[in-house]
């Protein structure tokens, strides 16, 4: 029995002895009755603004006035790779023997129908299932509950923050998306948040490398003094903000973070780069590699991980192609890893979706290869997205493709209810809180 199992079983057994029948934190007597499709969902927010043209439409350089097309996302999508100009994106051999599309349902046309096509707006829409207003405040948590809060509030007794993770490629305002300011939800139901490039990057190496793991007896001594001090401080002002892990989980995560930092430093971790070549790590692949470490260590039931490097498309289309190709590699690598995990294999649904698209018309910038760049300012093309839902046979419809240009099969607000459905608690959420629908057609 590993430590996670032990802690879970011990806490369940203890609570059963002390307080059966137990009234759940939600006020309900029993756990939700919804049927789970799987026990793990990994949502890859394939973000940064991806044009359908270079993704699911597989047009490569056709929009640059060159007559070459092809699929540069050969881990996620079926289709032949380009035969010309391949040095622009430095092709990698696919990780997967067959594209992920064959292991699930591809919503080839998904619409982001309302609100600004800004990155933070798009992330917020994807994680709350609600379109956002123009004046979104970047400095505060979102108005509507996040998928993490729905999961933790409506999923029974033993879901702690250790079961829900939000791992982002970018820092900026994105830490705010691990819980909302909704009065019925909030930090008490939030997810663990992690920005790997800071914690395991230069800042972490400079500041955290000297950390030594405390002996449990020393932790107990420190906590005894802390408790003594806290008992004498009755704060009547603001509450301590943010999510809180339980004491045991906090120590476990700290140990994980220090081990992962050491692993990145001495290059001993398995990373999402061919040949485990650390020089090939970009932000997206470092983030995905960390997500795997989290999955491998904690096997959380709900994980959201974002990529972002394609946003270079604002001024460097060549780099955009390269980043898109590598983000696809990362998704394939992650899926491959999940299928090697003792508990997550064949029990995980992976969802990948950009937060929004990019414009149809280029801006005035060209890169070193003379390729035009694209922004995302809210035209119809920047509202075009795609969604891939992959999972076990018998759970997710395999090899299905839905939607076409002008005929979107889904909206970006649909991911939250779809995750809730996959984890069996969609019927517990008030309909007034979510605008989207469950993408039931993806499932058997």
């Amino acid at each position, binding site marked *: 029995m590993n430590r996670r199992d032990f802690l879970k079983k011990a806490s369940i057994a203890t609570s059963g002895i002390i307080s059966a029948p137990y009234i759940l934190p939600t006020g309900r007597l029993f756990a939700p009755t919804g049927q789970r499709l799987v026990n793990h969902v990994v949502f890859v927010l394939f973000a940064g603004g991806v044009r359908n043209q270079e993704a699911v439409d597989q047009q490569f350089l056709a929009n640059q006035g060159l007559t070459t097309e092809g699929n540069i996302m050969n881990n996620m999508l079926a289709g032949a790779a380009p035969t010309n100009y391949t040095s622009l994106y430095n092709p990698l051999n696919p990780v997967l023997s067959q594209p992920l599309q064959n292991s699930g349902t591809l919503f080839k046309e998904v619409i982001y129908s309302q609100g600004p096509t800004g990155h933070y707006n798009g992330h917020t829409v994807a994680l709350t299932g609600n379109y956002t207003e123009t004046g979104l405040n970047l400095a505060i948590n979102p108005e509507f509950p996040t998928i993490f809060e729905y999961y933790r509030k409506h999923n029974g007794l033993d879901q702690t*923050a250790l079961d829900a993770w*939000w791992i982002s490629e970018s*820092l900026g305002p994105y*830490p705010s998306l*691990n819980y909302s300011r909704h009065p019925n939800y909030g930090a008490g139901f*939030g*997810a*663990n*948040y*992690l*920005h790997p490039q*800071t*914690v395991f990057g*230069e*800042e*972490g190496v*400079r*500041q*955290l*490398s*000297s*950390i*030594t793991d*405390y002996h449990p*007896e*020393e932790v107990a*001594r*420190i*906590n*005894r*003094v*802390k408790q*003594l*001090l*806290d008992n*004498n*401080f*009755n*704060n*009547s*002002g*603001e509450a*301590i*903000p*943010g*999510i*809180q*892990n339980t004491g045991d989980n*906090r120590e476990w*995560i*700290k140990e994980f*973070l*220090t081990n992962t930092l050491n692993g990145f430093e001495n290059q001993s971790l398995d990373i999402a780069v061919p040949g485990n070549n650390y020089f090939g790590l970009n932000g997206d692949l470092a983030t995905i590699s960390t997500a795997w470490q989290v999955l491998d260590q904690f096997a959380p039931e709900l994980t959201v991980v974002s990529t972002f490097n394609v946003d270079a498309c604002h001024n460097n289309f060549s780099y955009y192609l390269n980043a898109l190709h590598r983000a696809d590699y990362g998704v394939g690598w992650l899926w491959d890893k999940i299928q090697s995990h003792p508990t997550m294999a064949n029990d995980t649904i992976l969802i990948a979706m950009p937060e929004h698209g990019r414009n149809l018309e280029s801006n005035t910038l060209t890169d070193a290869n003379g390729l035009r760049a694209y922004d995302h300012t809210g035209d119809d093309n920047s509202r075009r997205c795609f969604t891939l839902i992959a999972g076990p046979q018998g759970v997710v419809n395999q090899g299905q493709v839905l939607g076409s240009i002008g005929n979107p099969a889904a909206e970006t607000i649909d991911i939250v209810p779809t995750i809730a459905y996959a984890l069996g608690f969609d019927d517990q959420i008030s309909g007034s809180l979510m605008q989207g629908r469950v993408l039931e057609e993806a499932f058997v």
Partner: protein
Amino acid sequence: MFDIKITRLLIFILPLLIISCKKETRIIREEVIDGYIYTVNSEPVYQSNVEKTKQKTTEQFISILYANLFQTTIPQTDLTDLSLIRNAIGDKQMADELIISGLVNNPEVNIPTNQQMRDNLDAFVEDTYIRFYLRLPTAYERYELRDEIESDLDMTPQDVYVAFAISNEYKFY
């Protein structure tokens, strides 16, 4: 008394205001409190912990923590690094514990030795309260902490410092 304090604060605060244009002038009161906290002195500022009702910002928390541990102002690079790290971890208590662990393991840290602590426990307790909480301990707090240290021979000054730095009161001013 008031004029002396204000003069001393202005001497400390003015360079900060000149160097940094990020702080808004409308939070002058916080600057004044910061001024007390950032200064490396051994004088109590608060009469009681009930005066502490506002949470420190990330930058305040880290700057003050650094000053308390190293008895000097935090270099800008360290402040930037540690602020980013605190933002990059969702569980702030955990982030603080990691940051504190990193700092107390720094060879430059200014922590009394175990011998110094146990040679004059009353002084250690009082100094620690003033250093971290900017106030004197109550009689009961003084007794409690002294008793805790005396009854556990493995308790080190580092343990006590870490406990103060991760305590709830330390998050407020």
